[in-house]
């Protein structure tokens, strides 16, 4: 990342704890516009928590998070306005089961952005078409495969024209044969220049699409670098152990 670009998202010494348990301990992270960042690391190292903090779903105890140069963790910031400019996709899809796919994806535009129903639905159908879900618009989520549900959730996160997308292990809940279609969608978004932070266990995918990879361990970023470097010659011992285990499990 060249120094003259203003980073889209900056985490500055971010601390987060649940009760006594420190989950994020002094995280520093920068994401430039159009950059794709991957967070990797063992289960429980704090990847999801980091993404939830950026989306203001969790309150941080110490440090700052900047979005477009503005401190969004400062008191008095309207968190709804910030969230409208970001999208987040969850591991378990979190679609609303009592709404059709179209209702799911137009809820945000209609209620948070105040866009008229007709307009929101027209845009929704367009986007669904683009993601191969055109014929699923009026289905309820439980009638869709896992891969289709996750693609619908991605469409939902895109409906508000987000400046940044956050992905939290979006393929972990999928059957292996459905992982590819979702990764394909994310790859497409990366190619279109979407700024993204991905928490992922898909190392092969991280190596292909990420501009930078950050290895997290017990609430800290232990090692960062371009994927080619970090995957080929990890420096920290923890990173080496983690990658060794990943390779043994056949995930790289």
């Amino acid at each position, binding site marked *: 990342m060249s120094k003259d670009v203003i980073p889209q998202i900056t985490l500055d010494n971010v601390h987060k704890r649940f009760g006594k348990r420190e989950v994020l301990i002094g995280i520093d992270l920068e994401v430039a516009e159009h950059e794709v960042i991957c967070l990797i690391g063992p289960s429980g190292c704090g990847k999801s928590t980091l993404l*939830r903090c950026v*989306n203001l*779903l969790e309150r941080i105890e110490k440090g700052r998070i900047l979005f477009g140069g503005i401190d969004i963790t400062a008191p008095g910031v309207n968190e*709804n*306005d910030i*969230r*409208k400019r*970001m*999208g*987040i996709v*969850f591991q*378990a899809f*979190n*679609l*609303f*089961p*009592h709404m059709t796919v179209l209702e799911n994806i137009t*809820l*945000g535009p209609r*209620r*948070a*952005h105040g866009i008229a129903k007709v307009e929101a639905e027209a845009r929704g159908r367009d986007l669904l078409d683009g993601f191969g879900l055109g014929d699923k618009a009026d289905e309820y989520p*439980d009638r869709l495969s896992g891969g289709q549900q996750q693609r619908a959730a991605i469409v*939902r*996160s895109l409906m*508000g024209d987000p400046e940044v997308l956050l992905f939290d292990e979006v393929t972990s809940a999928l*059957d*292996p044969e459905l992982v590819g279609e979702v990764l394909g969608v994310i790859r497409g978004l990366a190619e279109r220049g979407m700024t993204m932070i991905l928490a992922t266990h898909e190392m092969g995918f991280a190596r292909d699409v990420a501009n930078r990879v950050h290895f997290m361990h017990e609430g800290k970023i232990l090692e960062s670098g371009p994927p080619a470097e970090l995957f080929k010659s990890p420096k920290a011992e923890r990173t080496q152990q983690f990658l060794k285990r990943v390779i043994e499990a056949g995930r790289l």
Partner: protein
Amino acid sequence: MGDSSESGIESGGAGSGPPHLIGRFSRLRSELGKDDARPALIGFASTLAFFGVVIWAVAASGNWPRVQRSFFSAEAFRNAWPDVLGGFWLDLQMWVVAEILILALALLLAVLRTLRGPAFLPLRVVSIVFIDIFRGVPLLLVIFLLGFGVPALQIPGLPNSALVWGVVALVLSYAAYTAEVYRAGIDSVNESQRSAARSLGLTQWQALRYAVLPQAVRNVVPALLNGLVSLQKDVALISVLGVREAVREADIIRARTFNFTSLVVAAVLFLLASVPLARLADWYSARDRARRSQSAT
């Protein structure tokens, strides 16, 4: 991981057979229609035998003519019917009005109780105190307090009718219970649904309104129906205030005629209303269970 999820799908597929979809009655019917009707026949015969023995025991005891005269007199039944029916009409009206108010007030209480953030603490406290009080004090006592107490104050501008305050007492008491039913429903909706709604930029209130409450209410419809059934009987408690609803009318007739048949008339009317409702609640619960076990596979 891949292996376990695949086997999960297989076992789920095997479990989602048609029996889950069929309610109790249609299952009984299909049992009768099938070649092996024996279970249904046994059930029918044993029911018949049981009631036969009970009726025989009552009739054979020698007291039956007396029982019949004071409880089941056809003439007294005919004489009491119009007045008791008139009173029952008032019961039904109180029931409907009270239920509408209960559902609304209870929802408000439940929503207030689940609001987050320090700014809403006073509202949470109000809701908790209200629920504690009206769940803790016996309904009959609330009816006495409001129904006799408030009209006695003679405050200008406040209605003086025992009927109105009796219904208010029912509403307050039942709303406290029903609020807890709603709250259980809200708690049953996974936290991740709220996160998903908030992440779209919806306010706390919008997330509740559009994402959480529809699911919460759907989850507690059986419990709400049960409340409806039990309220249908409890409106009769207002008779203690002298309101001339069915039980009161029946009791007036009883005092005049020294015959209990008028009370039986009232009982029959309440049964005519509550039994179909109870079956409706059963039917809905069964359907609801089927829906859940299906969506769980």
